[in-house]
């Protein structure tokens, strides 16, 4: 075999070889070792086509051919589906190939996004990936790339499987749980108009689950979800969701309890949600009732709340404002 200038395989050949060897790997038979080598080699040559090599830029036509082959053969999806049988480096290669193909644009069209829209199962395979530790992080990378595209984010958000996130972010494996949270946060913040619409339509279901996160025994989950809640409520796109949230007395009670959490960081995040209830010029009666009932206690509490943050001007201004608001609350003249 010549050392140099080994003729390059065509995209169709690579896809074919990869598909065959992947099938052998999945079956776990004797030839698995050799198949694994072949799979790695094919993945490397695919990567070279897509990303170019040292001195060569990727060739647009070959890239287009490869993409077409990947769609037609269904290989792109079966790579994701069988990710756990591919070796460590190979998994990373699959991620890179997947993300590159996904970003591909022809003028204003994103062919891979269109392809995934008609093959939605791939999104849910990726999501399910969080349940398999060996592939969870790879799937996370690919899933986040998917949800950069609004149509794909919409499919995930509006699916029943979206609610699985509430479990994934509390998993005991820290790296997987944080990865899941990163994806969860992306889904809820990237496409603001889409999210505002979704939260408006599914308010009860989402916030019932969300509340569990705020009660979590896991410090990180609790803190991150509280912070995200604050960001969501203070985003103007979610104005109606915010007004709805702050009209409910049970939410206020929850925040008041979190203000007394043993962790100062959780207290601080809770403060940023609590302030929205108090600053609301149109408080509902139940909210006013709770604040009035606790008026003196709240004023005392806030006066002594996190006084070590003396250099945080904004925090102190807000605190002073809240104290004034609570003090000015008048009992209904009865």
């Amino acid at each position, binding site marked *: 075999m010549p050392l140099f200038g080994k003729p390059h395989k065509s995209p169709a050949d690579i896809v074919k070889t990869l598909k065959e060897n992947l099938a052998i790997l999945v079956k776990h038979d004797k030839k698995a070792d050799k198949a694994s080598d072949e799979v790695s080699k094919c993945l490397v040559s695919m990567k070279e086509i897509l990303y170019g090599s040292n001195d060569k830029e990727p060739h647009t036509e070959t890239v287009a051919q490869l993409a077409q082959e990947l769609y037609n053969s269904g290989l792109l999806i079966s790579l994701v589906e069988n990710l756990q049988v591919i070796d460590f480096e190979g998994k990373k290669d699959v991620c890179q190939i997947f993300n590159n193909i996904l970003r591909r644009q022809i003028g204003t069209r994103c062919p891979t996004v269109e392809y995934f829209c008609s093959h939605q199962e791939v999104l849910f395979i990726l999501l399910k990936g969080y349940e398999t530790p060996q592939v969870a992080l790879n799937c996370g990378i690919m899933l986040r790339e998917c949800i950069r595209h609004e149509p794909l984010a919409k499919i995930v958000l509006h699916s029943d499987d979206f609610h699985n996130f509430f479990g994934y972010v509390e998993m005991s494996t820290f790296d997987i749980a944080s990865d899941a949270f990163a994806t969860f946060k992306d889904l809820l913040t990237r496409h603001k108009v889409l999210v505002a619409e979704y939260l408006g339509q599914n308010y009860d279901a989402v916030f019932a689950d969300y509340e569990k996160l705020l009660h979590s025994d896991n410090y990180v989950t609790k803190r991150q979800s509280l912070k995200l809640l604050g960001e969501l409520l203070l985003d103007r796109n979610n*104005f109606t969701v915010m007004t709805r949230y702050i009209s409910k007395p049970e939410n206020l009670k929850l925040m008041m309890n979190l203000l007394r959490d043993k962790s100062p960081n959780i207290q601080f995040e809770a403060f940023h949600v609590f302030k929205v209830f108090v600053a609301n010029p149109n408080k509902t009666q139940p909210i006013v009732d709770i604040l009035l009932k606790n008026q003196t206690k709240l004023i005392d509490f806030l006066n002594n709340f996190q006084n070590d943050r003396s250099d945080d001007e904004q925090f102190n201004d807000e605190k002073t404002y809240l104290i004034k608001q609570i003090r000015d609350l008048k009992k209904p003249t009865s």
Partner: protein
Amino acid sequence: MSARELQHLDYLNENELMEMDTFIHRIDSTEVIYQPRRKRAKLIGKYLMGDLLGEGSYGKVKEMLDSETLCRRAVKILKKKKLRRIPNGEANVKKEIQLLRRLQHKNVIQLVDVLYNEEKQKIYPHQMLDSVSEKRFPVFQAHGYFCQLIDGLEYLHSQGIVHKDIKPGNLLLTTDGSLKISDLGVAEALHPFAEDDTCRTSQGSPAFQPPEIANGLDTFSGFKVDIWSAGVTLYNITTSLYPFEGDNIYKLFENIGKGDYTIPEECGPLLSDLLRGMLEYDPAKRFSIQNIRQHNWVRKKHPPSEPPVPIPASAECRDPWRSMTVVPYLEDLHGYTEDDDDDELYDGEDEIIYTQDFTVPGQVVEEELHQGSTDPSLAVAKPVCVNGTEGGSLNSKTKAERRSSSSSNPSRKGLSTASKIRKLSTCKQQ
């Protein structure tokens, strides 16, 4: 210059310093500018002052080096005397600081620190770099900037902030090509519970104002004002022209108020359609951020057709690479004398000057300590390297090379800190 500068600093009011990205660039040895002048070091708190980056009506913008983290920063120096001459000058500055403190987005300028000098004067810091200047960019480049502008604007609007003065001059570029919206001096933060984005006042730049303001309406949608101004900005950076002109502000407002404008043919149908959507006379029909995002011109991939327009060279020393300017001051601070200097130094240094590796700023300190640094504050700097994960390892190699080269060749002993630091330009810091 130094004497005059010291005088200026007595008036120092407020300087602002923001996060700054720095990149090392390929430098031809002939382009390394030799600076004959001796510069006096001036430390303000932990910041070492560098050269002038730009000047505005409020005062000056200078480069600074954070001597603890070795981050490059830019500082906006505001002089009370000058501020008083600007309508609402001081109030706007206060408001801007307050707004900036709570913002954090990759396309919005970040406030790092606010310093007040002894006579109740304030300093607060800024990002370095340059306004998107008033010239035409190739479509792919304009597209890149415009998308970042929209990202930043969407963030500001989501935080309930109407910028009110979007224009190329208020968009800063970092050396790595990212865009930062700056100057929130006339911005308005909507009340968090305001139902909509109704505004009543505007102090933005006339040529970028929408018809509803030119016609003097009492109330108008704030977000749609920013959309219009972003539209004029897009018009400007793609054509180098303005949609509306006038010999004076009255004529200008009269023209804007009529709303008649033409789009040059060269823009093509897609871009023209986007511009018409953003420069729609009726604010209610004008594009929203969402409409813009979904517009085909924005979604389209624009191939690089012509070479990109580079960031203009710095004003003072005309350095197209925007190298750190604090170096001569550092030399002064650490007692380096020019007797050792030698023009020939720069020759033969090619392999180092050409390096594009990201490096760990901490190592600059090490080098300096070898030269007999006396400032303990510099030694506490943490080694940092972001942007390139391999930075550390690549760098240790360069460092070793340099060590060996400087020890083997005594003629290079006097190598100025300038060229060393130029090589070791800092990376972005957390």
